[in-house]
């Protein structure tokens, strides 16, 4: 061991010891520890400046779990209607390896499907989304989305983290890491779902190799959104305070020996945050003061849309309270046993009829509400999906997975409104022009850009390697920016 290394370790150890004994908690001085280090250790969620002024302050990430069919919602394909019942021409399959479980069936359309153009933009919407269609001129479509993988598990992980395998931070975690919290009494990254989690579960809102403080916090339905947040009835406020102080002191001692243990740091933070959230979280999700008209606007008066509408109304309240990233996974309507997500391998008319009804009015209500409150200009709403569905049928009237070309959309600040970017081929199978292809990395780069973050400069050194949210890829879709 050379002198420099020895003195580095000595000084480092002493610095940490001093920090620990002086109490490494907010409001306590930290002699011998650099400001940046102390700040990171003591307050990982402190607000941080973006790289440049962002167009939006919050993101509502609407993951449509199970993968809706773009060609049954937004991407009208007259040729598909004409060719229904026939095999797909081989020219459309050039360069594709069809490895999806349903194999290759004949082209299929739902004969009852009707289409109409809406707004000045003339965007096409099917009869499944009559309420959302009224917002055609607020929306920015990306009709040339593509991804990798044809199974939900890996493609959902890629949608949320940029990688096909678990272990990387989700987009929300990167946002939380890069910008900190907009409200010290609430988590900066909140996850909600109605009834069911997506495949893969919490790895989709994990902080991966980032410190654990940046992971998503799940909000459950009901008046107390966070599991075990409430103080037990038999424990008084004073008793809770004493217990937390004891725990805090013990944790600080542990931290002195394992200063790189971010799980422990996150635990200290989470206890403190939990104490504050005992008051802030129930208030944030309490819809009691919302008017009946607002509730109706979000579809809370209908059993199919009530659960999802509830989440979106909460999302608006969280945006108002400064939460940076709200990740909402579409589950299924209360009481529904057959349809659990958008994954319509069979009987797509029934599946999409129910799922579209679940989300249509709530999302339309959210856009209307945000706009009316002047929040849509500073909020980004993203309709995201792990992939789309094939133009050929499966099991008679279903559709298989399609990672080669599908539609996602955004609405909110910094975007060209009523705009459509890219397209799929005439049957809706592949992105028509590969130079317009938008992969999940590109969506992430664009979302970060709108928040004022350069995805190339948002880095974290892990195991000696500089990691970034877009892995080795990512380009901002500049053509959709206002």
């Amino acid at each position: 061991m050379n002198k420099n290394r020895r003195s580095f370790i000595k000084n480092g150890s002493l610095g940490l010891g001093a920090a620990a004994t002086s109490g490494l908690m907010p409001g306590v001085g930290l002699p011998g520890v650099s400001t940046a280090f102390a700040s990171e250790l003591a307050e990982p969620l402190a607000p941080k400046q973006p790289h440049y002024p962002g167009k939006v302050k919050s993101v509502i990430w609407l993951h449509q779990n199970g993968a809706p069919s773009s060609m049954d919602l937004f991407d009208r394909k007259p040729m598909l209607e004409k060719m229904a019942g026939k095999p797909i021409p081989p020219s459309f399959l050039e360069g594709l390896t069809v490895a999806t479980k349903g194999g290759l069936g004949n082209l299929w359309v739902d004969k009852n499907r009707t289409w109409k153009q809406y707004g000045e933009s003339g965007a096409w919407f099917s009869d499944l989304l009559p309420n959302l269609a009224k917002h055609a001129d607020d929306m920015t479509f990306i009709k040339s989305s593509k991804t990798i993988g044809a199974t939900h598990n890996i493609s959902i992980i890629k949608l949320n983290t940029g990688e096909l395998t678990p272990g990387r931070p989700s987009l929300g975690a990167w946002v939380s890491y890069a910008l900190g919290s907009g409200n010290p009494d609430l988590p900066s990254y909140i996850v909600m779902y109605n009834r069911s989690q997506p495949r893969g579960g919490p790895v989709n809102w994990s902080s991966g190799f980032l410190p654990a403080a940046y992971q998503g916090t799940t909000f459950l339905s009901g008046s107390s959104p966070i599991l075990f947040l409430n103080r037990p009835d038999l424990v008084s406020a004073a008793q809770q305070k004493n217990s937390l102080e004891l725990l805090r002191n013990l944790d600080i001692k542990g931290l002195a020996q394992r200063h790189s243990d971010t799980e422990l740091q996150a635990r200290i933070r989470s206890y403190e945050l939990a104490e504050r959230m005992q008051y802030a979280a129930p208030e944030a999700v309490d819809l009691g003061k919302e008017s009946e008209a607002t509730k109706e606007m979000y579809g809370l008066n209908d059993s199919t849309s009530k659960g999802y509408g509830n989440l979106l109304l909460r999302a608006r309240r969280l945006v108002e309270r400064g939460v940076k990233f709200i990740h909402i996974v579409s589950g299924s309507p209360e009481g529904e046993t057959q349809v659990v997500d958008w994954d319509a391998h069979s009987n797509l008319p029934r599946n999409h009829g129910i799922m579209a009804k679940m989300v249509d009015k709530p999302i339309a209500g959210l856009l209307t509400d945000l706009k009316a409150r002047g929040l849509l200009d500073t909020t980004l709403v993203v309709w995201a999906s792990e992939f789309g569905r094939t133009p050929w049928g499966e099991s008679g009237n279903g559709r298989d997975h399609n990672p080669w070309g599908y539609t996602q959309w955004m609405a909110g600040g910094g975007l060209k409104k009523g705009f459509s970017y890219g397209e799929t081929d005439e049957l809706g199978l592949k992105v028509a022009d590969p130079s317009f292809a938008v992969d999940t990395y590109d969506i992430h780069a664009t979302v970060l850009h709108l928040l004022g973050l350069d995805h190339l400069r948002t880095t974290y050194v892990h195991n000696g390697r500089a990691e970034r949210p877009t892995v080795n890829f990512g380009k901002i879709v500049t053509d959709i920016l206002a």
Partner: protein
Amino acid sequence: MNIKNQFTGLNKVIRTTTILISFCCGLVFSSYAEDQTPDLGIDIDLMNFMEETNDSLTSNISLMNRDGALEDVVLLNELFVMLEEHFAEIGDYPEGARLAKKSTTLTAQLNDAITTDNYNNATKLGIELSNACKSCHEKFK
């Protein structure tokens, strides 16, 4: 020890020989493979090694680690030149040959960018190189 260390820990002559053997192994195996399309005779370990090197390059560019980035990019350039020659030899895969040539050009441009400390340009070229790799893997996986 990961595969990158296995390769980069060797001196240049042994490393190049090992890489050539990887190609040859791929070719031998491909001659026994039955009706698998397309079989390019490229060893999967070599591809993994190139991906690892690309990951390392991206990281070194982010960290502005000039020496590390140059070492990675020189190695990648050698490998892409070999890949280009391999595609020329087997023929029939113009898209593979085009992407290999594009990657060789990009690594040469990356070398210039890193040498002149132009890390902004190097970052953009690095993304282009990663996309070229991805396109090739999508085409020939």
